[in-house]
């Protein structure tokens, strides 16, 4: 009796162990398959971009949706971030008696990090989710199958214009986010916190180099490409029904945001190395 119950316990422990290992294996293999699928999808997009560029009518519509319609929200975000930075940084700088240098801190943070990352985040939220939801709905209602059945490659027709629009327009959006952040930060610091304007701009000018602005814009190109590919991919592999479309929209934003942060870190490290080795590290600093 005791031996029997011991055997049963051992069997059940073994079953649990096998179940866990199987579950882990399944989770790993599904993630690897997802990564492979995304890679194939990205290569297919690049292939179609090179072989046969997108049609003008689809490109114009994507440029309008992604560029023009995103501009207000990106500018608004930039303005508020500039002002929030001023509110947060001012007391710290005041404690050490360096409140006139607040402009350098705000503007450097904006052009190097916050401008590109927030413009990309806004693009992922406003445009990326919409792309995933639109393509997901097209998948669910068989519109993507209809394209294929008419001898039109869906990646060429639907993905390449969106990818190109994100890639080309995000540096411009970043620049506007930077600009509005600079204006917002300056307005709050000078008008409401009484920071001397001449010192504010003088220290900003010393701290922010053209390289910083260009580096931010350079990073944004990668963010734009990643957002377009991830969101289109999520739309294409959307599950059935309204739930599938909702999940595609949510996961497209989450994955895009993670990709933005990962790429930001990677590109910062690479750009710092490049800056050190090629440009000799000559750049502005806050202090």
């Amino acid at each position, binding site marked *: 009796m005791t031996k029997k119950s011991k055997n049963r316990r051992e069997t059940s422990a073994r079953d649990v162990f096998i179940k866990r290992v199987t579950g882990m294996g399944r989770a790993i293999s599904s993630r690897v398959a997802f990564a492979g699928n995304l890679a194939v999808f990205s290569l297919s997009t690049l292939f179609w971009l090179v072989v046969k560029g997108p049609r003008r009518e689809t490109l114009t519509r994507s440029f309008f949706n992604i560029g023009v319609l995103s501009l207000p929200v990106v500018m608004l975000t930039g303005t508020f971030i500039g002002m929030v930075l001023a509110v947060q940084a001012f007391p710290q700088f005041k404690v050490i008696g360096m409140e006139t240098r607040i402009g350098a801190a705000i503007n450097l943070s904006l052009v190097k990090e916050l401008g590109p990352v927030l413009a990309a985040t806004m693009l992922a939220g406003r445009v990326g989710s919409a792309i995933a939801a639109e393509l997901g*709905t097209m998948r669910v*209602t*068989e*519109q993507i*199958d*209809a394209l*294929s*059945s*008419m*001898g*039109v*490659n869906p990646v060429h027709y639907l993905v390449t214009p969106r990818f190109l629009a994100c890639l080309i327009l995000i540096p411009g959006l970043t620049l506007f986010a930077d600009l509005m952040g600079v204006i917002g930060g300056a307005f709050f610091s000078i008008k409401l916190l009484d920071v001397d304007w001449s010192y504010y701009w003088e220290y900003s000018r010393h701290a922010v180099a053209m390289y910083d602005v260009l580096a931010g814009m350079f990073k944004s190109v990668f963010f734009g490409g990643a957002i377009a590919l991830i969101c289109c991919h999520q739309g294409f592999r959307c599950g059935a029904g309204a739930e599938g479309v909702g999940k595609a929209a949510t996961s497209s934003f989450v994955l895009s945001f993670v990709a933005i942060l990962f790429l930001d870190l990677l590109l910062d490290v690479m750009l710092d190395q490049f800056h050190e080795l090629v440009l000799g590290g000559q750049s502005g600093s806050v202090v």
Partner: protein
Amino acid sequence: MASNQEVDATIGLDSSRTIEGSVFIGPDGVKKVLRRRPPLLEINSLNVIFGENQVLRDITLKIRRGETVAIIGESGCGKTVLLKTMIGLVAPTSGEVLFKGENLATLSDKELTEARSHYGFVFQMAALFDSMTIAENVSFPLRQHHKEMKRREVSERVERLLEEVGLNPSVVWNKTPSEISGGMRKRVGFARALAMDPEIMLYDEPTTGLDPIMSDVVNELMINARDRHHVAGVLVTHDMKSAVKVANRLVMLYPHALLKPDEPQMIFDGTADEIWRCEDKRVAQFIRGEAGDRIRDMSMDD
């Protein structure tokens, strides 16, 4: 002396009565060899498996020029999957789908695109593009594949196609799919499928969700497509009335999950007359629409 002469066989609507590959002496005394033309679409030993779920098992089917084949069977038996493999939208796990003798799976992207331009596909929910007007939807394949066509030519063709499916072009021209009824959407989908003068039309439950009158309109459109445009057709449907009226041949699939290991999945292949005389209980149950033991089986599953 009579000389040998090869001629293409004219495939009759009833393929079982067509004499192919035979030799005969014509009225002019010339010995003629009727050459066998390959079927327009040929499916050999097709298997489709999604994950751990087998949907189609060992399906072999030939679609000849000019004939319309109805694929019937209960929900979930793989009819739509079979239809989508015929145009390469679903890749077979094993087996082959040959269009005019070419295996779709081995074609390059460009060749597959070219092959698909000979198909017309009418989707269950029409699958019209929401962002386009009705005219833009119907002209879409023309604009994609016939860039040499002038705008006026495209407009005239779209107008003709809309009239052919019984729609008034001036009424629907600038409307979007959301502004028209389900029956009208189906007919627009029909017009779009006909735009490229296809050689084969694939219909995925075209009468589902329509009232009886509109269903019959769609049936007439399918017959019209076969008779006037000489296209072959594959009709997937649950609607026996539609299948019997439109098709020359009926094929019935049975759900793979309910099959015994050695049973074929295609449980019937014959004419409309033959299906009513079929002694297979499963076929009889489906065409008469009887629940039979299914309710008991379902409660046992629960």
